[in-house]
């Protein structure tokens, strides 16, 4: 028999970026709020203490900050013909754990999507006709436009404390910024950080080639900073320990630096850690949720927590899992195209070139997660899809983003991977390598989806979620195109050795090596209840008092890191709750 606690106005599932945003904005409305966090509590001091935090073996290799697969994981297969097996050892993607979530251990790359990416199906149809859309691709428009989201992107960037330089200020293209970005109503909150030698070298090559280099938009502080909540950041020292770590120096944008201490002051907000939500409970008519049931680790019991509003703000994969388990929609069937939950799971298509220079010293221990010079010359809104034979694009970036020695000692192919030969190779090449990365879009396909696994269960007896995913030709062609453009640019820099790493046609998804934690879709936004799981306000079509945050809302993935769109959508959603929903709870569409 589950314990039942007193009813709250709002229960928030997961206290990362979006849970914190929902928490503080709705607490400001005077609502009584409880946030439930599966993991542990963590704060800059004492948890991210220097030098203990920058222990690469513990956090970078053994992944101390991440979700434990023994507690929660997915099963994976590449197509409906295969039997999915549990993802028992983290590799391809790294869901976070604990207060702050992935917002604590990210790299700080904060991008907005291009306006075209939010209306991609219409953009393709208008320019090349729908006939170029390949069979099996679920290409869609987001049911919300860039112009509508712009104020919310801007606000999130102020809260998160983003450094950069505007390239398109209210339509005016500005020197030094990204000329191909969507318009910005305001300049970045902080100026860009200084650049490292590799990124300067890349910038020079890009300028010589006639491209348009600009600095990456960074959730890393270039100055001291105070955000609209009065929260603070201190300038980054370029230690190079961002991704997989909490920042010991208050320099990385995170729920800890941007929101949590302001939120914890509010008397109508409470949060509980070690509290894993098992399912959302629906009313008998199935049209609203009555609250959530969670596992209270300390009490070792299930608790029913009644609430008027449920905010799902856990990691995208966990949100989808909860929705599938709770019946917050019908599971997607790729054969019939019916159902919406688990639909349009998408990822990221990345590649890159490594360059080795015997005479150049790159000081690879100097950097930060969002360091680097970028170009958008081969991005979604610059590519002629009809002529190129694919839909998509990528941004390129060069700059040391990881000064960590164990995982960042690139060596030319053919160097022995152990022993005296390896030592000699490290001696010769350490500090003499740089790289250029291509970070590409990933479309949505009927094949790539999420549902409940028929075989495997978790420690609570719930079915694991099953991921069916494989690379598709459209994105692989895009990747090969980036390779064909990047290699000549890299060669123009005259490296002594140069090697590429781009997946080619026929590549199969391998869950072992790390690729990215940009797992998107699964509870996608849609114009109608038939096409997706949530409406344009991220309100579930099934139960109007359940709102789902995060990248699970993405119709298909963009070419950028997802946080900027996740943050913008979160502020867009809480604005709708505050101004439209609270006074008259109902389906908003």
């Amino acid at each position: 028999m589950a314990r039942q606690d007193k009813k709250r106005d709002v229960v928030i599932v997961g206290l990362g970026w979006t849970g914190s945003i929902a928490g503080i904005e709705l607490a400001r409305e005077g609502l009584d709020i409880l946030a439930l966090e599966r993991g542990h509590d963590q704060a800059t001091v004492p948890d991210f203490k220097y030098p203990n935090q920058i222990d690469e073996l513990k956090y970078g290799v053994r992944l101390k900050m991440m979700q434990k697969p023994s507690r929660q994981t997915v099963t994976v297969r590449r197509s409906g013909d295969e039997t999915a097996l549990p993802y028992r050892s983290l590799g391809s993607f790294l869901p976070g754990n604990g207060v702050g979530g992935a917002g604590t251990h990210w790299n700080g790359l904060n991008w907005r999507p291009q306006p075209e990416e939010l209306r991609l199906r219409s953009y393709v149809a208008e320019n090349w006709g729908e006939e170029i859309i390949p069979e099996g691709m679920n290409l869609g428009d987001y049911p919300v436009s860039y112009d509508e989201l712009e104020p919310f992107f801007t606000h999130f960037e102020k809260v998160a404390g983003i450094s950069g330089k505007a390239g398109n200020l209210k339509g005016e293209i500005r020197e030094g910024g990204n000329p191909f970005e969507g318009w910005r109503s305001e300049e970045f909150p902080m100026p860009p950080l200084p650049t490292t030698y590799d990124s300067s070298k890349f910038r020079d090559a890009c300028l010589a080639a006639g491209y348009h280099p600009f600095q990456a938009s960074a959730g890393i502080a270039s100055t001291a900073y105070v955000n609209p909540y009065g929260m603070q950041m201190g300038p980054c020292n370029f230690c190079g320990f961002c991704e997989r770590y909490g920042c010991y120096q208050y320099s990385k944008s995170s729920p800890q630096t941007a929101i949590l201490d302001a939120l914890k002051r509010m008397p109508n907000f409470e949060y509980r850690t070690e509290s894993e939500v098992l399912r959302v409970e629906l009313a008998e008519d199935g049209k609203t949720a009555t609250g959530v049931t969670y596992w209270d680790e300390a009490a070792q019991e299930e608790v029913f927590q009644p609430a008027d509003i449920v905010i799902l703000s856990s990691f995208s994969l966990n949100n989808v899992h909860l929705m599938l388990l709770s019946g917050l929609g019908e599971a997607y069937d790729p054969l019939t195209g019916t159902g919406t939950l688990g639909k349009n799971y998408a990822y990221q298509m990345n590649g890159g070139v490594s360059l080795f220079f015997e005479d150049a010293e790159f000081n690879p221990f100097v950097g930060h997660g969002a360091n680097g010079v970028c170009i958008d010359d081969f991005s979604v809104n610059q590519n002629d899809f009809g002529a190129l034979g694919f839909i998509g694009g990528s941004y390129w970036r060069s700059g040391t983003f990881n000064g960590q020695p164990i995982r960042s000692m690139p060596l030319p192919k053919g160097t022995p991977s152990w022993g005296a030969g390896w030592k000699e190779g490290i001696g010769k090449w350490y500090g003499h390598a740089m790289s250029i990365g291509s970070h590409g879009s990933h479309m949505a396909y009927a094949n790539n989806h999420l549902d409940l696994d028929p075989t495997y269960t978790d420690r609570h007896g719930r079915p694991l979620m099953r991921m069916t995913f494989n690379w598709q030709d459209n994105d692989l062609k895009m990747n090969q195109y980036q390779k064909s453009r990047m290699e000549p640019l890299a060669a123009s820099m005259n490296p002594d050795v140069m090697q590429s790493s781009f997946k080619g046609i026929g590549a199969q998804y391998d869950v072992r090596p790390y690729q990215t934690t940009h797992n998107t879709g699964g509870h996608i936004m849609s114009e109608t209840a038939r096409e997706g799981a949530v409406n344009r306000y991220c309100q579930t079509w099934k139960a109007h008092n359940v709102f789902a945050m995060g990248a699970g809302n993405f119709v298909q993935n963009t070419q950028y890191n997802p946080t900027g769109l996740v943050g913008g959508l979160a502020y867009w959603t809480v604005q709708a709750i505050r101004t439209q929903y609270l006074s008259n709870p109902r389906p908003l569409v």
Partner: protein
Amino acid sequence: MKTFLKIIAGLVVLGVVALLAFILVPVQRTAPTEQLAADWAPQPGQGEYVMRAGDCAACHTAPGGEPMAGGRAIASPMGTIWATNITPDAETGIGGWSLDDFRAALVDGVAPDGTHLYPAMPYENYRFMSEEDIRALYDYLMNEVAPVRNEVAETELSFPFNLRFGIRAWNWVALRGEAGFHPEASDALQARGQYLVEGPGHCAACHSPRNAVMAQDGVHAGDAGFLAGGVVGDWGAPALHGPASAVKDWSVAALAGYLASGRNVHSAANGEMGLVVAESLQHLSDADNIAMAAFLKGLDGAVGEVPQELAAAPSGHAMPPEPADAAGRETARMLTEAQPDMPLGARLYLDNCSGCHFVTGKGAPEIFPELQGNTLVTSAQTAPLISVILHGASLPSTARRPLHLAMQGYADRLGDDEIAALSSFLREAWGNDAGPVSAGDVAAVRAAAPAH
């Protein structure tokens, strides 16, 4: 001979009578300094505001205890003084106290039964409070604070400090100037600031030096020692005016911002001051924090620009760190060059501190304090500097700056010799001019329990 004995006996009798009178004759209570109308009543919230301005909770609320229920241990050189229960509980609190009783405690330092309060209760300063504020505070404690039954341990100091009647004589020496507020400043804003600083704020209790009998050597603007710098336990409370003033280069806005949030472009409130910000100053109005800042700056002449209000929560505010100035350039150059043979203290600074405080020693505005010219670094009291390096420091979360900003400690990373070398480096870097710290100094602080 008989006559002589008679005289002696007479003197003894006289002495005994005088001593008995000294001990037993009740202290004359000071009358109200102002006659308020019979139906005078405080505005809603007024009494609580006075409680905040007087920082009553800092002593009378124990860590984790009920508000105002007492029980916090206050360390003094004479022994531990236990803060009393000032909730309106009739038996263990002040529920049975009349307004006159209450005023006598604040102004004369006397409990209703005639017992003298130990001057840890800053009646040296509270006696300058207005009658309105005293009445409002009484009304708040009696009607808005929940009565809590909490028997607080009796304060038991060693002989002779356990003889409380002796405080009567101490009061003859210590309590100078009439009760009530006597403004020096003609400007209304500075006069308000003076009132808060001298009266409820009791700033002199820490920031004025103590004289030979441990009384505050300067309680009033114009007194020679007023806010000239004091010592609280092992911590220095810096001078707030004069040539050694910790705030001489601060603007009124920066000083008021520090009072309101515990941090500004220069510094951060450590130790006792952090508690003052947490319990008292962050709850005061902008106008009052600005008034105190203006008054303090006015003690040295030019007040400079006075803002109308402190900047509201900014809409994203970037503040670049400052470059090294002339006094700091040489140190900054040495640290930037980072020669392997640089002195140990400088190397330790580079390895452990410069990420936040920078080679310039300028820190970063509002988050990482300046070390150049920082009175905590250069104070004659070296324990606070050593303690911060060993155990770290933290700032309270305030409404204006909610980040619970903390510096980590290095006790587990640096040895006594290293911390001594590092501290000595800090005390002479960037133009700082203070003497070295020894490994023995560090060992002593390490052996003591962390103060904050």
